[in-house]
């Protein structure tokens, strides 16, 4: 559905997107993840045919986005960041205009508009001026606009930014329901969103792709180098830490005190799960144990890892 090769965009001396390659198959939801200014929006603008690239190619549904732009755009529904809309129009009037502009034939206009109004939960505000709508509704009008011509590919730039938690959930459910009919490329910097929605994640930083995999695989990749939490009441924490360090599968141990309890954060050697050994050891020493666990690695950590701990 989407094929990107060596795509590069330079603004003067500044390289916003640096020779990225990726592919998206039909029916996938792919998340674009990265800190602000990483090149997410620029990449999406190029895919949508708004910005020409400095070099490289991108194809959508077999049409080159730059040399065959008009045909490619017919396959794309694009919702820009901040959802610009014509505020002087009413919702249904706006959708009618956009649908006919995107080539929906006259006899199908009514059907398509009522479909997207229903899908996006806009029936109540159909006759309202867009200038009077709340941010959440505007976001949904933007989504309705993006999919009114039944595009194969939806490109959504930060669709949940600036919404309250309820609205975020609504928009997310909406996107999840769309996966049956569309391939979706979505950019966000909210990590749980990616884990919930996407079948694959592209982590992009400083214009380069840092990682490209399923959320599970990305987690697993770092999960191997994860750590174990061991929370016990020991007579002397330092001695206990030294003893723990000698166990098989343990690399380093750090200690934090919580009253009489000591919480050990144990870094494991890759491929090892030392929990059973630690348990046996604790039983031998008859230390009361409060917790022995291996917390799952969140994408948050994956992200921090690949972007070198930069702020989101």
């Amino acid at each position, binding site marked *: 559905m989407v094929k990107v090769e060596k795509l590069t965009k330079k*603004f003067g001396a500044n390289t916003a997107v640096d020779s990225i390659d990726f592919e998206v198959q039909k029916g996938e939801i792919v998340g674009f993840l990265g800190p602000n200014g990483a090149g997410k929006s620029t990449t999406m*603008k190029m895919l*949508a*045919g*708004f*910005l*020409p690239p400095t070099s490289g190619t991108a194809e959508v549904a077999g049409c080159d986005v730059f040399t065959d732009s*008009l*045909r490619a*755009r*017919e396959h*794309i529904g*694009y*919702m*820009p960041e*901040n959802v*610009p*809309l*014509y*505020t*002087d*129009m009413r919702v249904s009037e706006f959708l009618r*205009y*956009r649908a*006919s*502009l*995107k*080539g929906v034939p006259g006899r199908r206009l009514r059907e398509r508009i009522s479909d997207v109004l229903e899908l996006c939960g806009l029936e109540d505000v159909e006759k309202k001026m867009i200038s009077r709508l709340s941010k959440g509704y505007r976001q949904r009008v933007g989504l309705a*606009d993006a999919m009114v011509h039944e595009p194969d590919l939806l490109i959504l730039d930060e669709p949940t930014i600036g919404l309250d938690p309820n609205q975020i959930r609504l928009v997310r459910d909406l996107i999840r329901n769309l996966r049956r009919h569309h391939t979706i490329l979505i950019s966000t910097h909210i990590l749980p969103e990616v884990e919930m929605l996407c079948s694959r994640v592209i982590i992009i930083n400083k214009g380069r792709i840092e990682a490209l995999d399923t959320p599970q695989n990305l987690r697993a990749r770092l999960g191997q180098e994860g750590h174990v939490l061991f929370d016990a009441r020991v007579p002397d924490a330092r001695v206990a830490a030294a003893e723990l360090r000698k166990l098989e599968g343990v690399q380093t141990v750090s200690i934090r005190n919580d009253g009489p309890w000591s919480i050990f954060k144990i870094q494991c050697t890759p491929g090892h799960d030392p929990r059973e050994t630690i348990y046996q050891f604790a039983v031998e020493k008859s230390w009361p144990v409060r917790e022995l666990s291996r917390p799952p690695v969140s994408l948050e950590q994956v992200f921090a890892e690949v972007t070198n701990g930069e702020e989101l």
Partner: protein
Amino acid sequence: MGRFFILFRREVASTFHQPIAYVVLFFFLVITGFNFHAGITMLNNGRGTTTVVEAFFNTMYFWFPFLLVFPFTTMRVFAEESKMGTIETLMTAPVRDSQVVLAKYAGALFFYLVLWAPSLLYFVTFQTITGMNAAGAAGSYIGAYSILIMMGMLYTSIGCLASALTDNQIVAAMISFASILTLFFLGLLSFIMPATGSILREVTYYFSPIEHMVDFSRGIVDSRPLVFYISSTLLVLFATLHVFQYRRWKS
């Protein structure tokens, strides 16, 4: 062509969705109405030897609203979309850049024509009430209104170019007003030039709206100004298209 009409309709609708359109229309009618009244009064006092049409199209009260109106009809067209960001959704729909530029230009020109259309009623009213001819011949109307449309075409395209240059409507209005006034005053040079034979005077005649209007409102339809207005309109529109593309591509 289908997409052009969809875009054109949207341009016209967005113009008339704004209260400013009616404010401009109101003041425009007040001034042109006053101009017509002043023309008739002058002729009544026996101080003129022209027809009513000539009197209407060749006064300061004609040129003043004529020149002033272009910033209002054109400042929005590109600047507003760039500022609001709707240019992004517009240009990712399957429409050509040239269709967008032409539709916006046509929309602005349409508003200009709407502003002038009521003036035709003045002459109809005059003839009905007095039973006299407002013009010497039908050519007077054809001449006056065709040059009015021609000048409108060029000045509207200049306004569109100004609007494509910036995100700020006020800046767009100032650029177009300054350029249009410069062009207008260059045309006035032909009145200051003393010798009729001087080359400068000959040259300035080609783009002097006042000279053109004097001739055309008498019914003298000269092809030179027509060529000038049509070709320069095309040139400015071409520049507008390129500025529009260039600004998007480097943004």
